[in-house]
């Protein structure tokens, strides 16, 4: 009798674990690390983990912007993150011009630019009622055009020493004789993760965002100013993307227009895949899942690169992974079988 009860308890606990998308996402990352260790011995070492951690940051921050957008609406996605990121890189480089004393001007200019482009996105989506994907895709095109005719192909400036330290250097300390190196960007990331989780899960702002994402109409009838909040969500996404551009400038050193707009790293795609892997959808999920998603993508990418896959096949494999995860998530939630009009 007692055994049966405990058996049931174990079952419910297991069920809870497997129905929790965040835990599943981290299990996937763990599985990928084990696969990596089997295929390429020496995959799980502290230094390599830190390299993966550092590379995940650049996907993870864009995924943070995407998380806020996706949580606030079932069909909301920001496809202009790559273009806004490039704005951050170029403006940051031009204002910094290699001098440390310009750092705060650069930060302000970059955030302002991101805010402006994000707000235009949000205005189109919330007030004009244009579908988010089309609005942000067209906006990406406009931003690319603006960058093209303002720079005419000549890029000024470069990162300042402080920014370069933040972008690519490590915090070094010794533990029991071993030198430990932790990238500075990841310390920023940890702060941002804590802040994002607190905002989304513990404050009324997060609650309102979830409300809008679950049912915008009901939220409006409850007196929430849906349009303004949606606009601000897109502004926030733009600001985070351009801020990330500044940090990417620190990592790379000199500006390059293909950092966010090139095909090698497709930031809109990576961030959307990371968000979906993390189980974030309209009104549900938490940023912790998207963090797992970006770990997953970067680890997968590094395994595939070491095995000698080219850009195209890596992209196709990412697409397959997304498709398989979508099938699993939709089927398991049971949402697939219920006829529902969104």
């Amino acid at each position, binding site marked *: 009798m007692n055994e049966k009860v405990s058996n049931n308890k174990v079952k419910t606990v297991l069920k809870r674990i497997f129905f929790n998308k965040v835990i599943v996402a981290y299990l996937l990352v763990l599985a990928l690390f084990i696969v990596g260790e089997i295929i390429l011995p020496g995959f799980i070492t502290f230094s390599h983990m830190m390299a993966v951690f550092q590379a995940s940051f650049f996907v993870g921050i864009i995924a943070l912007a995407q998380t806020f957008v996706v949580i606030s609406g079932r069909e909301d996605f920001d496809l202009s993150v790559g273009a806004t990121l490039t704005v951050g890189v170029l403006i940051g480089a031009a204002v910094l011009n290699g001098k440390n004393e310009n750092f705060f001007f650069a930060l302000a200019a970059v955030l302002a630019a991101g805010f402006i482009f994000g707000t235009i996105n949000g205005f*189109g989506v919330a007030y004009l009622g244009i*579908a988010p994907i089309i609005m942000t*895709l067209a906006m990406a095109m406009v931003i690319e055009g603006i960058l093209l*005719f303002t720079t005419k192909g000549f890029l000024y400036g470069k990162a300042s020493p402080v920014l370069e330290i933040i972008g690519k250097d490590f915090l070094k300390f010794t533990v029991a004789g071993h030198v430990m190196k932790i990238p500075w960007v990841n310390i920023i990331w940890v702060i941002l993760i804590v802040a994002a989780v607190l905002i989304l899960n513990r404050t009324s702002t997060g609650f309102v965002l979830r409300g809008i994402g679950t049912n915008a109409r009901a939220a409006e009838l409850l007196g929430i100013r849906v349009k303004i909040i949606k606009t601000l969500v897109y502004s926030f996404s733009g600001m985070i993307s351009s801020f990330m551009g500044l940090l990417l400038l620190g990592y790379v050193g000199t500006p390059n227009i293909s950092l966010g707009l090139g095909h090698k790293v497709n930031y809109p795609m990576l961030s959307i895949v990371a968000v979906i892997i993390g189980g974030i959808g309209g009104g549900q999920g938490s940023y912790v899942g998207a963090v797992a998603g970006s770990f997953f993508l970067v680890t997968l990418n590094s395994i595939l690169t070491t095995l000698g896959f080219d850009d195209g096949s890596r992209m196709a494999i990412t697409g397959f992974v997304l*498709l398989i995860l*979508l099938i699993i998530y939709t089927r398991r939630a049971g949402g697939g079988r219920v006829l529902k009009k969104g």
Partner: protein
Amino acid sequence: MNTNNNISKAGSAKSFWLKIYKDTSFPSFLVLVMIVILNVILQPNFFSVSVVRTNFMTFTPLILVTIAQSIVIISGSIDFSAGASLSFFTCMTAFFMTDKNVALVIILGFTAVIIGNGFLNGFMIGKLRLQPLITTYATQAIMLGFAMYIMPVAGGYVPRFLYKFYNSNFLKVLPVPILILIIGVAIWILISKTTLYRYIYAVGGNEEGAYASGINVSNIKMFAHVIASIFIGIAGICILMLSATGEWRSGSPYLINSLAAAIIGGISLRGGKGDVWGAICGALIIGFLNNIIFFARVSSYYQIFAKGMIILLALSIASIPKLFEEKYKF
């Protein structure tokens, strides 16, 4: 003009005009007329056969992709992988093509697009009921990945007679691009005579209602994607003959342009509203506007910006009537 979704008793001349006025594609038709007039002023010899042919060489693929996109949107789904499928088609055909196996390669590419774009998307969205936007985003990554894998840099071989054929007149009268367009529209008209066409509207307009009245919703959604992929395949042939190379970037502008054209043409993203004639008007508007940019001698640095702004402005203007509708609802 097709006025399927307006129920009004035909008869007197007055109701005929009312019917046209209330048609979803009427505003886009008006805009199209204005833009054509502007184009006539800017472009020399606008009505000569060769100028019409050069214009339609670029318009035909866009119109065909827009038809594909609108069929899918009307069925309540969306096709984000249209551009990537076009890239995949051009890369694959240009890679395998030699002087002797042209027909075989084109048929193979066509089949690949129908399987990859039509059946894969249709199966996922129709049968497995995944969210259309994200699903087609994933297939976009797959198709684009394959295209990049086959052809990392632009190249390939396209026989000379193929692109000569596209830039010539059929029987010395009818430009070939227009001939292909007529074939495409004829296929669409044939489809619109079947019950499948009505089912697509029913499923897009009210999925639960369609299910309750015995329509096989998942099959209809799948068919919508498969039919759309046929048009994407034809558009792919046009782009192959137009550019005469395979490049994985060649299809990407068609995605945003086709989406914008469908919306300008009065097709609602919620599904079940609008018709394909409006979408064709929308595609022509985008095409002629791009023409105007070219003939107004805009510097090449400003062209991407101008094209993006045109899409944004057109979308904002198209959204204005919707804002008033919202007001009436409250």
